[in-house]
């Protein structure tokens, strides 16, 4: 009844709803609003949770991406440095373009502190042979002293037992450059026995490998003169030079796949000598194998010169010396011997094929 009455009243008089509305305004609506707020808060919270979770997921994936990118970046950076190094090597390659070279990596170094030799990852399978010159950066690094199928040991020029013939580039005065353990820390080497003549040698001048060295190819940069003085005997000069190669950070090197013996044709004459004695192609083949450093003989000495030194008494001493530095006499022998007409052209033309020149049939056996 009350309801119907109220309905009728509200239909006919709109104002009857007023008090009720006021009442509702005072009581229900605030509560509703409150509930609404709580509800929306709850929704917000749950939504927050959702977004947080999403953000976390995103974060995780982004982190993974960052890691991946960092890794990629590192790899790229490493490659960039390698590229720079290789580019430098390539530039060097252009500088010494007339020689054929094989690139190699340094894989291990001498375990002691007394000597500085190292191993590279190329060996006889890559055509490396004993006595080949090794260069890097912009100059001479050392010489191959021992060869295995996939490795070769290189004695660096700063090694205490290393000697080589040097030459001042501008004046062509020859000298002997020696590695010295006590100078390694200063990054220097010693040179001595330079003739005390009118030619002025100044600090900063280039010293290259000389034309009379029997193991080192001519004209490879060794270093720059850092100090020079006249010896007390007034006949010779000596001093210090700074090698151009940073031996502490050696990673890649280039091996010149041609030995001085091949270039000058000394091994051809030895081959001739070998063939002459026992008469026959077989003996020649043996000698060829010997110069290939595959035969048993040279291995003992670690030098291509080793085997033939028995034949030529003049060679005996320098070969034993390691670097063979009594160069002039050695050179005299080298030049004198090829006087055989056959040896001359072979030595100059096809130095690389020197050993294979005479007995081609036997070369595979040597290898």
């Amino acid at each position, binding site marked *: 009844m009350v309801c119907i009455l109220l309905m009728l009243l509200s239909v006919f008089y709109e104002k009857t709803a007023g008090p009720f509305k006021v009442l509702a305004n005072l009581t229900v609506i605030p509560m509703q609003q409150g509930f609404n707020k709580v509800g929306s808060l709850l929704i917000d919270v749950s939504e927050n949770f959702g977004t947080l979770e999403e953000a976390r997921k995103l974060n995780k994936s982004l982190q993974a991406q960052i890691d991946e990118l960092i890794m990629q970046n590192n790899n790229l950076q490493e490659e960039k440095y390698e590229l720079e190094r290789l580019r430098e090597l390539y530039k060097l390659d252009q500088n010494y373009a007339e020689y054929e070279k094989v690139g190699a990596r340094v894989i*291990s170094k001498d*375990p002691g502190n*007394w000597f500085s030799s190292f191993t590279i990852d190329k060996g006889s399978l890559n055509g490396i042979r004993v006595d080949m010159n090794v260069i890097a950066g912009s100059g001479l690094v050392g010489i191959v002293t021992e060869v295995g199928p996939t490795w070769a040991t290189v004695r660096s020029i700063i090694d205490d037992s290393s000697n080589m013939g040097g030459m001042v580039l501008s004046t062509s005065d020859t000298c002997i450059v020696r590695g010295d353990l006590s100078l390694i820390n200063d990054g220097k080497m010693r040179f001595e026995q330079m003739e005390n003549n009118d030619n002025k040698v100044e600090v900063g001048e280039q010293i290259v490998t000389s034309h009379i060295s029997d193991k080192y190819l001519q004209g490879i940069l060794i270093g720059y003169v850092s100090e020079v003085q006249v010896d007390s005997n007034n006949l010779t000069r000596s001093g210090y030079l700074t090698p151009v190669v940073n031996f502490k950070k050696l990673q890649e090197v280039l091996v010149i796949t041609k030995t001085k013996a091949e270039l000058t044709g000394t091994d051809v004459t030895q081959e001739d000598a070998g063939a002459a004695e026992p008469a026959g192609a077989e003996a020649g083949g043996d000698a060829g194998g010997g110069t290939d450093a595959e035969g048993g003989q040279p291995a003992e000495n670690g030098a291509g010169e080793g085997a033939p030194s028995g034949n030529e008494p003049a060679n005996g001493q320098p070969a034993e010396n390691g670097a063979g530095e009594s160069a002039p006499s050695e050179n005299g022998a080298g030049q004198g011997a090829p006087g055989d007409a056959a040896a001359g052209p072979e030595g100059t033309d096809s130095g690389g094929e020197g050993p294979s020149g005479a007995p081609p049939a036997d070369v595979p056996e040597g290898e």
Partner: protein
Amino acid sequence: MKGIKIKRVIVTALAVCVCYMLQCTLFPSLALASVKPNILIILTASYGFMRGPKDGMLVGFFSGLLTDIQFGNILGFYALIYLVAGYVNGLFEQMYYDEDIKLPLALVGATEFIYGLVIYLLMFMLRSEFDFLHYLRHIIIPELIYTIVVTLGLYPLILFINHRLDAEEKRSAGKFV
């Protein structure tokens, strides 16, 4: 028993190889003032006084031989030096206790010093390089110090490996008796 023995041989061979490779590859880049420690000496000496002259000699011989094969001029030169080092250290087996680190340090240091002297005598003095004090100051002493520092880290590791092997040996011995 036999299995344990084989295991010990394998572990020892592995230790020699790993030490040699580290010596040739890692330590050159860790060199201070172009001097690197000699962990082959550490290994040889520790095997000597931990396991006796025979094991010391074997470990020394093979560590030296590896050096000879790759870098030596004459095969057997370093092998002999390391072999003697292993043997002499083996003589101290009686005096040695696990807990004591002073004796190992002293022995490794002494071995390293004598090793330096011998190398100087045979490889440098005989080539008339008489400036002994320079080599002493710039190579032998720095190498000695660096080696002793590395010994502090490496020796406990070798000791631990040895302990593990010893424990296994004892266990398997107990099983069979």
